């Protein structure tokens, strides 16, 4: 073999020739072929792959929609309806994109929930987790700007309300809002820049997803037991085991997606967004898209303008420091009887906030939102730090293989409570 060429194991001469000079095939084989993956994943571990596929669907449909869309206040609404009526399969591409956003959030919410339940954010995966939170924030920004583009009533008033959030900041608030608008209200310059950024941000997401995967492949995946693999008996090669499992999950996901697109395409939307934007009339009851409702409820739960805005942003920012707030060395909630209940309560609070966010700002929803908001933050700031000291975890299995294949009894809790860092 010539000096300077990569030592390739591939036999096919063309693949080998490329691989020796640019070892992408070796890399793919290593990262997605033989990559050692814990053998005990459940179906919750499908959702990372699903999110990746969903991102690609959004980018593909988005690029084709952009070929027909006109980002101008006078034409935006009609150009979207033209896509629905006159462009070949335009209705299909648009409904896939529209409902794809909802599917993306369903998938990512479950993915995040999985990470929180099984302690995937803990050492050594803190950076992996934080990159995930960055992706989530970028997704929210992208989704918000995308919802403005059809220029319906909800688009316009959603944009007005959300951009006005920034006016809560003292001194620079008004300046920031004007910067976002490019004028003195949400208008054509706002629509134009939102379109530009809505097209840009998904590619930024692709970049951060790449880093997310790089970080994942350094630490390896967590698993439902939260116990690190101790050797080859605990792992399986990614292909064919998890490619097969992910493929099955993917088909199920497509069935749910298709059900939404073909039989209830407007179910998760709001009828007011089929009324063209009118800067003079606010709809009687404005709500954001469903995936923003929990955060919207937190905003409304606080009676102070700046306080509400800070709490809303804080509800996501707090995820960045979650790895250090949770001081317990045990990852999986399966072995944390008290934390498990506390977390399931937190999950219920999340849904309660989602429900209250869609309701008018009146009693009893305001009071309920306040209690749910209080618990949302207490879980992170009080319960998790305390439980790390007070909770007595259940005995952890000695290894994944033992737990899965049933060989041998569990080890005493003390024996594995500490060495959580991967060798």
């Amino acid at each position, binding site marked *: 073999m010539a000096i300077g060429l990569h030592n390739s194991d591939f036999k096919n001469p063309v693949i080998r020739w490329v691989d020796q000079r640019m070892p992408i095939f070796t890399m793919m084989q290593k990262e997605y072929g033989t990559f050692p993956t814990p053998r005990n994943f459940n179906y919750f571990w499908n959702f990372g792959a699903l999110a990746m596929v969903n991102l690609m669907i959004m980018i593909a449909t988005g690029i084709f929609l952009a070929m*027909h869309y006109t980002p101008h206040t006078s034409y935006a609404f009609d150009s979207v309806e033209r896509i629905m009526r006159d462009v*070949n399969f335009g209705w299909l*591409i648009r409904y896939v994109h529209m409902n794809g956003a909802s599917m993306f959030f369903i998938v990512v919410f479950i993915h995040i929930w999985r990470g929180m339940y099984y302690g995937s954010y803990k050492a050594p995966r803190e950076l992996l987790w934080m990159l995930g939170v960055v992706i989530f924030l970028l997704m929210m920004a992208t989704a918000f700007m995308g919802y403005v583009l059809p220029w319906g009533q909800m688009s316009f008033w959603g944009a007005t309300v959300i951009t006005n959030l920034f006016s809560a900041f003292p001194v620079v608030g008004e300046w920031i809002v004007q910067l976002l608008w490019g004028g003195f209200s949400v208008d054509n310059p706002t629509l134009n820049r939102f379109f530009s950024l809505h097209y840009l941000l998904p590619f930024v997401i692709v970049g951060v997803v790449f880093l997310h995967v790089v970080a994942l492949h350094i630490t390896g995946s967590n698993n439902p037991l939260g116990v690190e693999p101790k050797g*080859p008996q605990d792992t*399986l090669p990614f292909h*064919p085991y998890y490619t097969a499992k992910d493929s099955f999950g993917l088909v199920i996901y497509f069935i749910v997606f298709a059900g939404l697109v073909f039989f209830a395409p407007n179910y998760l939307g709001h009828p007011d967004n089929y009324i063209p934007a009118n800067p003079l009339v606010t709809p009687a009851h404005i709500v954001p898209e469903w995936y923003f409702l929990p955060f919207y409820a937190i905003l409304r739960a606080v009676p102070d303008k700046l306080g509400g805005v800070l709490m809303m942003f804080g509800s996501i920012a707090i995820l960045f420091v979650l790895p250090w707030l949770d001081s317990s060395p045990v990852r999986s909630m399966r072995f944390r009887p008290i934390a498990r209940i506390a977390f399931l309560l937190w999950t219920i609070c999340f849904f309660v906030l989602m429900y209250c966010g869609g309701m008018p700002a009146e009693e009893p929803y305001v009071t309920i939102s306040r209690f749910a908001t209080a618990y949302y933050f207490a879980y992170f700031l009080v319960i998790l730090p305390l439980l790390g000291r007070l909770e007595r975890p259940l005995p952890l299995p000695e290894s994944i293989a033992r737990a899965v294949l049933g060989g041998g009894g569990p080890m005493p809790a003390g024996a594995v409570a500490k060495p959580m860092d991967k060798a």
Partner: protein
Amino acid sequence: MAETAGATASDGTPRRDFLTLVTTAFVGVGVGAVAWPFIASMQPARDVLALASTDVDLAPVAEGQAITVMWRGKPIFVRNRTAKEIEEARAVPMSQLKDPQADQTRVQKDNWLVMIGICTHLGCVPLGQKATDTKGPYDGWFCPCHGSAYDTSGRIRQGPAPRNLEIPPYAFTSDTKIRIG
């Protein structure tokens, strides 16, 4: 473990291979079906296909004059030919033509020549509509981009263009009006 797991199973290998084959075939069909709507969406939309036809009033166009009108975003040459031009066009033997077409088949009324004014070479608009334009060596139209010359029937006579200027679908709605499209 990693070596044995993927490739073979101790028994039932044929069934798994068949199963994998069928599944792969299904996935292939699915991916192909997904690609189609995207490709189709780039084809002209229905409102584009239904674009209005264009009415042209011929009354103001005197003999020997020409006008250019727009149809489907393209220039349409409408020329009221002189008797001399018609005679020139009909005197040419077919054997001299690169794309043989009799002048009679290219017009509905002898003096009115209606053509899509786009050079069949690479899409430039030939000169020859205005009185001051150069009409090229065959007294018809001359494409300045790559030197294609057309005769008084819009037929290619010289240069790289492969075909005669195209005739759009049109009909006379009265003696002095046509509708293109």
